[in-house]
């Protein structure tokens, strides 16, 4: 059975189902209990599973992330709530120095199966320290996996896969998508990590989009279709590991590619994707690769400024038109 639920509800459903399936899965974080987490994903969990498996923490991001790693090496599968995601940067030591190196240090003796839930991206009234999209900060670290869904279906399936994965996974939840509705099957399914998805097939230009940029790219594709430009939208869904095969297949088909994300353009994940496509797919290129990302500034609080800084659908449309016309 399939029905429409929100991105937030899809995540919550994944947590419910995984906690029922495996007693080693537990949730930890600030306000994760009756309050339901700062972004409302964990509402209802403590009522079903109790305070022993929905662990409310003091404001101690470094401390409780380190503690979560301590439980993970002992066989647990913590899902760590990072509230408004920017606080993940407070806990970088235990994510990058501890969790990411656990498999390497223990050399097979144990693992660090953790999920860090990081809400990311622009938030009205957020400002420079509550609107970041810091996946690129972590994507350079071997030992970590990075996931960013763009639909309720992917959110549930990827969350379940991330919880079952034996590695530390940073799970980025674009804040703007929490209320997005979409079709989600009832019951169990997973979306494997490291597999991209063609969200809309096309033949003229590929748009590689992540997170909140995926629905924008799909809208742009529909519009440009009316003008006879066929746009293929590809969502990598996982940024590490990156499904290079699906991206290269799309480039082979279209020969033209725009990459768009909410994170800053400089050193953003788009740079890696562009470099990979240029290195491995240069034979297919019919036009220069275009990258779109936020302008090089901390994220401002004003909505008008945010719209100026973050790539908008019209920016995607302009880039696609230019590439389509490139001879």
């Amino acid at each position, binding site marked *: 059975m399939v029905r429409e639920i929100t991105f937030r509800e899809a995540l919550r459903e994944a947590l419910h189902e995984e906690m029922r399936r495996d007693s080693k899965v537990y949730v930890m974080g600030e306000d994760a209990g009756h309050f339901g987490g700062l972004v409302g994903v964990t509402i209802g969990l403590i009522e079903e599973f109790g305070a022993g498996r929905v662990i409310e923490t003091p404001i101690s991001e470094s*401390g409780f992330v380190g503690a979560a790693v*301590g439980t993970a090496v*002992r066989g647990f599968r913590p899902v760590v709530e990072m509230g408004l995601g920017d606080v993940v940067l407070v806990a970088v*030591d235990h994510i990058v*120095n501890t969790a990411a190196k656990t498999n*390497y*240090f*223990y050399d097979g003796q144990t693992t660090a199966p953790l999920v860090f839930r990081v809400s990311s991206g622009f938030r009205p009234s957020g400002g420079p320290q509550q609107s970041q999209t810091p996946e690129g900060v972590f994507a350079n670290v071997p030992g970590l996996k990075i996931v960013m869904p763009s639909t309720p279906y992917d959110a549930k399936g990827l969350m379940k896969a991330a919880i079952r994965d034996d590695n530390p996974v940073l799970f980025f939840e674009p804040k703007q998508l929490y209320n997005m509705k979409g079709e989600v099957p009832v019951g169990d399914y997973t979306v494997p990590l490291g597999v991209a998805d063609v969200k809309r097939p096309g033949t003229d230009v590929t748009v590689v989009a992540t997170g909140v940029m995926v629905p924008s790219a799909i809208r742009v594709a529909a519009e440009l279709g009316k003008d006879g430009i066929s746009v293929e939208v590809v969502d990598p869904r996982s940024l590490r590991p990156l499904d290079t095969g699906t991206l290269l297949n799309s480039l082979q088909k279209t020969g033209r590619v725009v990459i768009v994300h909410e994170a800053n353009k400089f050193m953003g994940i788009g740079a890696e994707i562009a470099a990979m496509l240029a290195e491995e797919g240069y034979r297919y290129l019919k036009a220069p690769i275009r990258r779109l990302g936020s302008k090089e500034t901390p994220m401002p609080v004003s909505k008008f400024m945010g719209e100026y800084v973050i790539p908008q659908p019209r920016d995607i449309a302009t880039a696609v038109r230019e590439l389509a016309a490139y001879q």
Partner: protein
Amino acid sequence: MEATSAGLEMYRLMLTARRFEEKSLALSHAGKFSNYHSCLGQEALGVGACYQLERDDIVFPSYRGIAVRITRGFKLKDLMAGLFHKSVAPTRGRIPMHHTPNIELGVWGTTAMQGSIPPIAAGSALASKMLKTNQVSICFFGDGGSNRGDFHEALNLAGIWKLPVIFVCENNFFAKSMPVSRSTAGGSIWQRAASYGIPGELVDGNSVLAMQAAVRRGVERARSGDGATLLECETYRWEYHSTEGDREKEWAAGLDEWKAKCPIERFEKVLLEQKLATRTDFGRIGSAIDAEIDEAVAYAQAAPDAVPEHALENVYR
């Protein structure tokens, strides 16, 4: 002290750590391998703390963890091969010897971030609580590490959650070149325990028996569900922070005073006074250790170098 054999066994472990370190320092100074972090002079601390632990208790050593590892049953040849970064070492040349975990021996990971281990140990204790096992977690860190925010966060978590964990601060009075007198406000680390509602204790870290007794009290608390303990154990390292540097002037000034408090000589005196051992026993034990160390060095030197491709294994599971 329990029995003659227990006393002599602790003596053997301390002397093994001492001789192993002396050999390692000599090899490092001779350029056989780089950068050795010694805990020469701190042998009583690791041996006394770990000797009575159960096999399945969970130990997170500090960077100066030779005595801890030897007490938990590590083989000298494995440690020595680790120092030479050889392929036969448990670390396979991938990570420094000082990090070697061995879950079977109850020695879990450490981290090069000084002061980052207490939250991990608190988490391990939380796991014991969730699993309803009787296992105690114990972690070691330096006086320097106790000034990190992680120290505060971990002790607070251990306090509110009543975690079965023992925090052992190895106060050797210097964080590399920085003395406690200039780094640590309030002049005491153990007294900080009061603010977390857990007992704190100042321990003579150069007395293996004092260490044993203090940790035993912590273990009893932890196993009976009373929660965490903080021990500040005073000791002194007899070497520079590592073999890479020799510019620690303030540390050098305190060396003679602390060499007079040698933990091994002190324990010899106790054993002799209580007629639990003779000088002949000490000599016999020392010779056996030296032979074992020579064997370990020969084994490590003859072993094949690290295999470059092993660098890429177990990055992910």
